[in-house]
């Protein structure tokens, strides 16, 4: 019975998720007018937070190199590397790589002594900060981003009075799971994110290249202590009638190198999103904006329901074929329930085909076109996501679960 009811909810959630793929890919996001770059005097001071935890040397170097290459006025970029107290290795790597920045920028290493996961680290750094800036941007370790990214985001924010801006974030990897994650993030960036922005004016931010007006964070009392503090912060910004923007610029981040690493990452995202659903529903804001957050936030629930639903559905079908329809509970063949079975069957075939098509449509003609054969394995990846969604139900909300990018 519960399985059968699950099918009803699963169909609704799956259809809602599928609807996000209807958007055409690669729509142009906002472009800052770089033909009229403000003079150095006109550009505001920027705070850059780089929270680091259990990093490898290359990850620290990658992010610092990208920051060093920025074309933003050097004297106006204040970079703060943040490490956890006791994470001596990361601290050592930062010391080794900081010359990339200290030669040009105001760089400081902040040691977080108060814990509190990533949000706690960033809040600690903000509390310690005495440089007054209007905006802040967050980057993780292992981020590779374009040289004019910060400049673009600042100009876009100034032009449109945006409170939160996101570039396109791609997680790239060479392993099979890494390539599948790459495809997944590609769809997210070129289809779903622009779709949400266009239709609802909001979207959940992610931690890489996350650009926020600093006063918004301070008014909210800092970043929320959740597993997906970036997404939760976006909900708070939307609730305060904040303005969102998408910039045409990219961040490349190393995907987890192992399946286990990706599983851990998914557990954190899923659990964080589940928390965000409750927060979105209880926060006072227009329903249109709520929907813009709920559609992506229900992804873990869709994944969670998919597996048992397909098991039930296939079981139903096999029993009916082998044992005859009389073995099926009578109400399951009622005119009220049968349409749900048809709906489910349509999703099983057309829904999955459509999402594979969506993947292929997204990567066709891009740098990732060579990943096309892996798009055919997407259903296996969804199976993996479904298992991860199960695990996330049992995951605690206090332990962060750092992404393993050991190379």
């Amino acid at each position, binding site marked *: 019975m519960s399985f059968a009811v699950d099918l009803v909810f699963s169909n609704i959630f799956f259809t809602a998720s599928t609807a996000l793929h209807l958007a055409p890919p690669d729509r142009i996001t906002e472009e800052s007018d770089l033909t009229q770059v403000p003079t150095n005097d006109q550009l505001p001071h920027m705070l850059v937070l780089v929270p680091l935890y259990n990093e490898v040397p290359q990850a620290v170097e990658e992010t610092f190199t990208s920051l060093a290459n920025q074309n933003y006025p050097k004297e106006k970029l204040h970079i703060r590397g943040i490490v956890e107290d006791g994470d001596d290795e990361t601290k050592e790597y930062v010391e080794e790589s900081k010359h990339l920045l200290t030669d040009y920028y105001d760089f400081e290493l902040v040691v977080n002594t108060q814990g509190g996961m990533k949000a706690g680290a960033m809040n600690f750094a903000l509390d310690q900060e005495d440089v007054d800036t209007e905006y802040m941007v967050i980057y993780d370790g292992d981020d590779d981003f374009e040289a004019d990214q910060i400049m673009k985001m600042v100009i876009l924010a100034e032009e449109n009075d945006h409170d939160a801006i996101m570039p396109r974030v791609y997680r790239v990897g060479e392993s099979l799971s890494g390539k599948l994650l790459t495809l997944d993030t590609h769809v997210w960036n070129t289809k779903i994110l622009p779709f949400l922005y266009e239709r609802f004016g909001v979207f959940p931010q992610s931690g890489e290249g996350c650009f926020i007006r600093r006063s918004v964070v301070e008014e909210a009392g800092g970043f929320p202590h959740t597993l997906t503090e970036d997404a939760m912060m976006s909900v708070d910004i939307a609730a305060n009638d904040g303005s969102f923007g998408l910039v045409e610029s990219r961040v490349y981040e190393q995907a987890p190198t192992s399946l286990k690493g990706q599983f851990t990452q998914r557990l954190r995202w899923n659990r964080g999103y589940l928390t965000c659903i409750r927060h979105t529903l209880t926060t006072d804001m227009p329903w249109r904006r709520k929907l813009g957050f709920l559609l992506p936030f229900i992804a873990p629930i869709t994944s969670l329901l998919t597996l048992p639903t397909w098991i039930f559905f296939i079981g139903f079908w096999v029993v009916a074929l082998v044992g005859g329809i009389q073995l099926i509970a009578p109400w399951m063949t009622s005119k009220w329930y049968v349409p749900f079975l048809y709906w489910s069957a349509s999703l099983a075939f057309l829904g999955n085909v459509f999402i594979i098509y969506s993947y292929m449509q997204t990567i066709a*003609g891009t740098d990732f076109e060579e990943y096309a*054969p892996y798009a055919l394995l997407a259903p296996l990846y969804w199976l993996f996501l479904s298992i991860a969604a199960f695990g996330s139900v049992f995951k605690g909300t206090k332990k962060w679960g750092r992404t393993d990018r050991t190379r």
Partner: protein
Amino acid sequence: MIFRNSFERRLFGVGVAYSAVVATILLLVNGHVFTSMDSTSHTYIAAAVVRNGVHSKFANIGTVWLPMLHILLAPLTLFKPLYSTGLAGTIVNGIATGGVLVYLSRIVTYITDRKDVLYGSIILFLSSGMTALYAATPMMEQLSIFFGLSGVYYFLRYWKEDSMPDFVLSGAFIFLGTLTRYGFWFVAAAFVVAMVTKELRRKRQHNLAFFHLPLWGGCLWFVWNGAIFGNPFSFFASKTMELSVWLQTSLYSRVLFLGVLLLIGGLSFLLPFFLTRKNAPLAIAPAVVYAMYVISYVGNLHGLLSNLRYGYVLFGLLLPSIVALRRMNKRKSTIVVALLVLSVIVSSGFVLTGVYSDFLGSPGVQELSVDQPELPNAVILLPIQGIHDMEHYPKQYLDAYDGQEWRRASRTPWNSNVDFVVIPAGGEGRIKDYRDSGPIDGFVWNFFRNESWRETFLHHFELVDNVESGRATYRLYKRLDASETNSTSARHNPKRGFCCTDNLARYSVLRQEKWDSRPLGRISQRIGGGD
């Protein structure tokens, strides 16, 4: 469809308006827009899915005709006027006609900037009699042309510009096309072969991962047939297919038909690729083959005339060919252009006067069918074989899918809950079909071969309609006064929940109103004819 400019928007409007005008003429003359048995079938199949009481089900989409048109029509048939007049089909095909014009203009514009060529192509397409027919009636062809031209347009861009996104878009349209007409399966195969060859030649093996996109429609149809009818190939293996005219012909004819179909389908969709001065003669080759096709079938296989419509897509692509031909010397190009135009006019004329001879002013089986939906609870008993024929009636019938219930009714219809019985007339061969493929107690066999059975049957049922359409003749028998029968099950069947007497009375009134309201008056007296 996303319009690129106001010209495309206007062009789309022209297509819709064109369909509306043709439909209006049909409505004024006939009172409906059904112009063939097929057009009524498509509407009823769609209606059977959503407005068939307890028997509403997706399985009613059936196994023979591909489902795209029926799926699009289904929600529209919920509105009674759209259903009973066939205007549901006008809406779908009106939009398709607009889409055809838009993509025709895109293809022509992609090949040449000349406005006269663009307007000429559009006029040529709209001037075909078949365009008029398919734009306004519930037929599948116009929808096919729309998917075909859009698929060709994006494939052309992929081919010329090496653009995979365009192949993906092309694949989406061909996918929809393969769910509209079987002819598209050849087109999908041709596109896949062309794409694979191109990518291999360019050593981009990874792009082979895209090749499957146009093929999913066929896969879906296999899955549907397997899931609903227990055999992935039931659409081909069914009795319906056996009844299909082209399979009743000789093996030689079948091979010829398939060969020509493949040739025309493949070449016509690849037509734009040949539009260079050097290859211009190749560009018109499909049209020449098409003309030969007309002549050979008119001369030898008149029954297969309807298959001409598969070459219909050529019409819209004729003028781009002519553009290429204009680069040839004047005399040659004039001759070829004249041949092309002639083939359009002659072939559409043949099709209209031959296959769709009841296009205007002649009541056919569709008129009988138009009345049936007015009896939402009536039950009609139909023969086991000839689903193709059965699909001309609404689905409140008992047919082979009803299993034992149908078998019981077939043995003794007077003891069952049927209101009407349809008996196909025909020669020995047709009756033999029913004996060979159906159970020996089938009512059609009994009717023609079992005197005592027939006598009992006629004691309980009377002939009320005897209609002819094209090659088929149907006789509709209605139950006599229900009180004279002992069909107690009819009165107390909670599933059916009907009352024979009410239905029959309503049927008579509706028939009379229908005849009286015909603008052309009563053309022939068909009710009450003898057997």
